[in-house]
């Protein structure tokens, strides 16, 4: 029987189905063993081309070094003295050592400044392509129209806020019903031209003390009056007297002396601000999208009872 015939006969036997898989397993194990027991890559003993130094096997790039030399000395590299070159190299090695130490100390985990800088670095890379785009006039104007309220000047108010204590509040002994009748009458009198002094003396109103005497900017007035009274005041015009407003401390009447409503600045007057805001918004959009992407790829587990 020839050699080939014997091989054919062997392969035609039922056991042949096991031979090839077994062979594959043996080869696989050999390859794995080879990788497992092979010596770790030897540390570099010479600085590879393109680098100026190896600091704990971490390379300092020649280009970074030369750029740093030229930056620090404000000279072309060829004109820099050996001493200056040595100084810069020493500084760079020191810096690299400190950076490596920072990694060992896990500063990205523990130092807020490092974390913030890293986050800012990522955001600025993400935003760079977006910021390269210059908007058109139409895009800028559309942005302005959409965000008109951001370009409004702050309004201001000069008003009087009178309050009438009700049901025992600050020794007031009239009932709420009685106070409402008095307040309605006071409003009527004020709208008919009665003076504040007369109304206060006749009906027992007094200044609430919430609003400052004189003009106040809108945001300050809102802070002082509170949301409920400010909501009424913000719609009032010069000389207008509000209806009585029921509040926890009594019945209020607001007398608007002067109301300067917020003015939306004309587009041409705020072009520069609109431009900067547009770019900030574009940049924020890009960084938000990046975060969404990162979140979609991340595995985030929250402890029981916590939500974000």
């Amino acid at each position: 029987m020839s050699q080939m015939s014997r091989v054919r006969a062997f392969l035609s036997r039922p056991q042949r189905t096991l031979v090839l898989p077994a062979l594959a397993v043996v080869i696989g194990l050999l390859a794995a063993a080879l990788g497992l027991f092979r010596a770790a890559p030897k540390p570099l003993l010479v600085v590879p081309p393109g680098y100026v130094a190896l600091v704990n096997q971490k390379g300092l790039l020649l280009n970074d070094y030369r750029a740093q030399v030229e930056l620090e000395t404000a000279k072309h590299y060829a004109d820099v003295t050996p001493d200056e070159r040595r100084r810069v190299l020493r500084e760079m090695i020191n810096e690299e050592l400190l950076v490596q130490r920072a990694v060992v100390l896990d500063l990205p985990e523990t130092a807020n400044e490092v974390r913030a800088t890293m986050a800012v670095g990522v955001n600025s890379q993400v935003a760079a392509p977006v910021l390269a785009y210059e908007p058109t006039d139409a895009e800028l104007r559309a942005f302005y129209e959409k965000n008109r309220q951001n370009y409004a000047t702050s309004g201001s108010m000069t008003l009087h806020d009178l309050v009438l204590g009700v049901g025992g509040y600050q020794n007031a002994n009239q009932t709420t019903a009685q106070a409402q009748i008095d307040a309605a009458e006071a409003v009527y009198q004020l709208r008919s031209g009665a003076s504040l002094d007369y109304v206060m003396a006749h009906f027992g109103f007094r200044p609430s003390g919430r609003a400052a005497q004189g003009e106040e900017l809108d945001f300050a007035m809102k802070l002082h009056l509170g949301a409920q009274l400010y909501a009424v005041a913000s719609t009032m015009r010069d000389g207008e007297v509000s209806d009585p407003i029921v509040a926890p401390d009594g019945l209020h009447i607001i007398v608007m002396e002067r109301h300067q409503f917020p003015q939306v600045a004309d587009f041409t007057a705020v072009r520069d601000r609109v431009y900067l805001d547009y770019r900030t918004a574009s940049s924020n959009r890009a960084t938000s999208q990046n975060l969404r992407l990162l979140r979609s790829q991340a595995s985030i587990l929250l402890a029981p009872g916590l939500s974000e």
Partner: protein
Amino acid sequence: MQPNNLKRVKIAKWALPLAAIVVLGLVMIAVIHWRSQRLQARLLATPPEAVANDPALVRFATAQARPLFAAHCALCHGADMRGNPALGAPNLTDSVWLYGDGRLFDIELTIMYGIRSGLDKTHNETDMPSFGLRGVLSDAQIRNVVQYVLQLSGRPYGAEAANEGRAVYVGTGNCGDCHGPDARGNSDYGAPDLTRNVWNSGGDPQSLYTTIYFGQHRMMPAWKGSLTLEQIRALATYVYAVSHAK
């Protein structure tokens, strides 16, 4: 002769030369590979300023860089390396440089870290404000500056408008802060020389108007990380060689 022997002789007749050719081919491949590895190492080990003076290195770098340029750079700078005014991508075949002095090192640094790429080491000292869009200059002022730039670059211009433009250049526009009081530019800022009549985004009056109106905020990606140091050096050498060809 036995038929089997006859067959063996026939096989040997073509198999031996074939084997010789294969062996020779393998040897040649090994030699080319070895030589290429050596040149590769030498390309990076040689100081940038010396690479350009070594014809063998320049030839090697050019051969390495051509396909890289086609794959990574030609999209903006064009296959002929002459730039694209629509994208503001500069012509790489001339000797005019926005950043640096056109040394191989400068070119390499720009390829490595890009322009406004978002990296800290990138060129991002300043960018040209959009004077019209932001309302810094009026339409008429921009048109006057255009006339002044035409004058600076030695082309026909309107004298009266150019005078007005010059006043804007040194006054409201503060153009000289970057382009210099003599308008010769500043490669630290990437501000081009306005007297050379070389334009990245077009030099006709309409293009100049658009540039002043919308400003310039061009960017170039940083190739560090995407390309190896050897590839970056090869590209820089190639660009240097093309731009410095006599």
